[in-house]
């Protein structure tokens, strides 16, 4: 595709949008039109986009369900909780080891249940007569077999309908065991409109039942927790490596390579760093309200972004030694990053990317593409909300519809004993003055170029149209989209599970990503799609054997 100097390639987003909507029934087209926005900076901020709304029945959507967001995403990566799916077998089966969130359970005696799938495997008689008895027995059996610290129960769709009171069962069992925390999640798949509701339900319950249970803190001078980092492909390992090197102690990662005790003592951190704003910003808010821990938005995707995030943390702690150490680390790590860029950039410069994934990665990964000289011409989230697109200033204006109303908002108050404001309000004000505002996120749209297109909840039909009409050099989405896009001769990088690669976070991750994208966009295979006789079908002259 031809590229204009200093800008996006010559494309006409308005006609692409029109083409994408053309085939839809009028009602569908009207709704989808509001979820597609051409980026034109306005004096009053970002253009408005419709997000976090229902997917139209019949549309081949990228989205999953609340259970997937709750059990799969948030609770999945914690190794020492026994996660029991209460429902028929499928839900528990599909969420078994399929997310590539790595864990390090190599310490002697460490527990690791992530390789297991636990289910009550409900049968028709349980659906008819109720499944509470079976659930109770299943929890008992899990306790007898493993004696874990905690057992979590996840409701799937039919459970809500037949009215099993999973919370009562959990409370009863917790009391009976005495030494095992049992709690439940009403994360039936029909709640909300996407995985996002499941993140919320999961986080609320972790906050309610686990956070704050253990006041013992790990030693460390600069203590943070990392929120919204799931250790896919080992991202969390790389971030921890960098943090350790800087002398920053990461007490708890919500939730990657995580353990029950990390969550239980997370309130002893002095700063919360939010990676994925969508899945967890409300937990950061609650930790602040209840325990006085402020939060900042960070991003460890991209070498530049990593350096920036480390500097933000140093700025917050305001300690000369830490500041110096952070600069040293950045100086040590960057040469390898620059060397990799020098190598790949001649092959990636000015190539174009599209990113449709998740609730933060479609934003974060643009950093890496920028570093490689690539342009993001279109992007959007699968399950994010307006604030993730337009910035947190829109939060007060968000409308609560029927689908968000059924997701509980916890009422949190300062903990009478344990609330401790980590920084005086004046100090927080000063930090904001000097360029480090707390709880601030500007969203994806302001970071994208004018003339780019932002599309919420992109579906298979629209993806196909985009690829066909615009032919980006790389398309980023998930496993369900991977092969339909690749059949058209355009490489697809999975940004949920990373295909087989990673880590892509931090400095080493950035280098990995540069090489991975170089491999994909420059792979020889895209030149093999046509056989010689398909490229030149005419027999120009009768071939004569010599």
């Amino acid at each position: 595709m031809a590229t204009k100097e200093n800008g996006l390639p010559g494309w006409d987003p308005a006609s692409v949008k029109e083409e994408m909507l053309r085939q839809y029934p009028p009602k569908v087209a009207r709704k989808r039109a509001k979820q597609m926005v051409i980026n034109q900076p306005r004096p009053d901020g970002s253009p408005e986009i419709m997000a976090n709304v229902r997917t139209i029945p019949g549309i081949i959507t990228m989205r999953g369900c609340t259970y997937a967001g709750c059990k799969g995403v948030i609770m999945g990566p914690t190794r020492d909780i026994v996660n029991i799916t209460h429902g028929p077998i499928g839900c528990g089966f599909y969420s078994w080891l399929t997310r590539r969130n790595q864990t390090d359970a190599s310490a002697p005696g460490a527990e690791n249940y992530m390789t297991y799938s636990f289910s009550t495997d409900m049968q028709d008689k349980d659906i008819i007569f109720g499944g509470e008895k079976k659930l109770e027995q299943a929890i008992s059996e899990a306790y007898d077999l493993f004696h874990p610290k905690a057992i979590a129960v996840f409701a799937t769709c039919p459970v809500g309908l037949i009215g099993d009171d999973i919370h009562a069962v959990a409370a009863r069992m917790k009391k009976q065991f005495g030494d095992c925390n049992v709690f439940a999640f009403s994360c039936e798949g029909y709640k909300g409109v996407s995985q996002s509701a499941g993140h919320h339900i999961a986080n609320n319950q972790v906050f309610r039942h686990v956070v704050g249970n253990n006041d013992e803190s790990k030693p460390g001078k600069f203590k943070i927790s990392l929120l919204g980092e799931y250790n896919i492909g080992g991202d969390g390992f790389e971030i921890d490596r960098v943090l350790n090197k800087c002398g920053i102690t990461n007490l708890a990662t919500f939730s990657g390579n995580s353990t029950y005790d990390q969550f239980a003592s997370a309130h002893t951190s002095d700063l919360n760093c939010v990676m994925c704003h969508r899945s967890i910003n409300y937990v950061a808010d609650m930790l602040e309200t209840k325990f006085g821990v402020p939060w900042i938005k960070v991003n460890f995707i991209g070498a530049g972004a990593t350096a920036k995030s480390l500097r933000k943390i140093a700025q917050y702690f305001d300690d000369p030694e830490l500041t110096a150490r952070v600069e040293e680390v950045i100086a040590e790590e960057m040469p390898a990053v620059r060397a990799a860029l020098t190598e790949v950039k001649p092959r990636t410069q000015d190539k174009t990317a599209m990113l449709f994934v998740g609730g933060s990665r479609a934003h974060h990964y643009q950093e890496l593409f920028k570093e490689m000289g690539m342009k993001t011409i279109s992007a959007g989230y699968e399950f994010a909300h307006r604030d993730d697109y337009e910035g947190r200033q829109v939060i007060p204006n968000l409308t609560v519809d029927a689908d968000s109303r059924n997701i509980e908002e916890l009422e949190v108050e300062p903990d009478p004993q344990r609330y401790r404001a980590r920084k005086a309000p004046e100090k927080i004000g000063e930090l904001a003055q000097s360029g480090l505002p707390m709880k601030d996120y500007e969203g994806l749209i302001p970071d994208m170029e004018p003339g780019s297109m932002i599309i919420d909840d992109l579906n298979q039909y629209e993806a196909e149209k985009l690829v066909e009409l615009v032919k980006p050099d790389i398309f980023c989405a998930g496993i369900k989209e991977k092969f339909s896009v690749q059949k058209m001769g355009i490489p697809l990088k999975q940004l949920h599970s990373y295909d087989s690669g990673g880590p892509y976070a931090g400095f080493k991750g950035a280098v990995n990503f540069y090489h991975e994208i170089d491999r994909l966009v420059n792979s020889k295979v895209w030149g093999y799609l046509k056989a010689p006789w398909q490229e030149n079908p005419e027999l120009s002259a009768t071939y004569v054997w010599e």
Partner: protein
Amino acid sequence: MLLRHTPKEIGERGALTINPAKTCQPIGAMYAALGIHGCLPHSHGSQGCCAYHRSTLTRHYKEPISAATSSFTEGSSVFGGQANLLQAIETIFTVYDPEVIAVHTTCLSETIGDDLPQIIDKADKAGKIPPGRRVIYANTPSYVGSHVTGFSNMVKGMAATARKSGQKNGKVNVIPGWVEPADMEEIKRLAALLGVEIILFPDTSGVLNGPLDGQFQMYPPGGVTMDELKSTGDSTGTLALGEWCSAEAARLLDTSCKVPCRVLEMPYGLKATDRFVDALRTIAGVSVGDEINHERGQLVDMISDMHQYFYHKQVAMAGDPDQLIALCEFLVSIDMWPRHVVTGTPGRAFEERIRQITAGLPYQVNVKAGAGADLFLFHQWIKNDPVDLLLGNTYLKYIARDEDIPLLRFGFPILDRVGHQYFPSVGYKGGLRLLEKILGALLDRKDRDDPEQSFELVM
């Protein structure tokens, strides 16, 4: 250790399933529906099930899997999913333009009790189904049976579209069961070699093993057509491969269209393939030509050439009933010894048949189907009585690594290797491939473990 919490001692478990050896009905229905030409499978429920089923099938086939969903919200779960399905049917025909939509239910819509035929009828009356297009369906509640049941239910839904015109078409219906696209191709090849015209349904060959050529075809060229399905009512007879996967559909054709049927075991290995070829030639009244005899002879040849390496090697296998029965017979026929056999799919007949096949062995095999038959128990059995080879889906690799036992990947899902899309395991040729893979696994292990002084060049 990856499965460090699995104890050797086997205790009573009545309610907790750990590491299932089955999954849920709709994914089977979705797979079967993909074997219809021009078909878009549709999951009537919340969107999570559909996302899970598509993802798993995609990972198994490394191919695009298109399927739509009714995207239930809380409202639909209270008031029923009729409005969602009506809207879905309209959206699908306008946007995706399939020839047929194959609707299956999920636990949610089943628990609600949505009446599919009534809703589809309503859609039809409201003009939401364009002329010449079809909506077929299957009820697939996952709190009954397993993914195999769902497959069978959708195949039955396909058979329900058969019509008897009164004029025989001279063909034989073959219902292959849940086998791979390459297996379906192989069954068609064998029938063609025999000179028998068949209607194979479902038929995922040409759908889920497509080429990379610069085009995305939402409806690839493969699959049984709706016309062919209709004409199965005029066939000479039906061969159903696998009691669990295929028998119901065959029996339906028998009662609804008076097409006589025979239920055979799936043609994995020598004897089951012999029975399949024999049945096909008998129904069609043809004789078996030299090509097939030649292929059969090659399989017998490999069994004899390498018999010493198979002899009395013990195998633990997990998977689906029809496949396990046939494979078990194949293993016993080459003097390998099945030791532990598990399927999460219920069925008493399974345990009986496995016992019958293994009756001549010097021990009682451990066999279990349905409730309580999971990979946790399977692993415990292996800890108590170790084996030489594991056979089953990708989830077994955790056991394989912990117990240091070679694994032959077979069944569903295979998430970490390729080949099942392209190379058949059924028929004589498929038998050769299975033996090649078994030998590869056993001999690689031998080469790794043999002491230097007895390390062999020639094997």
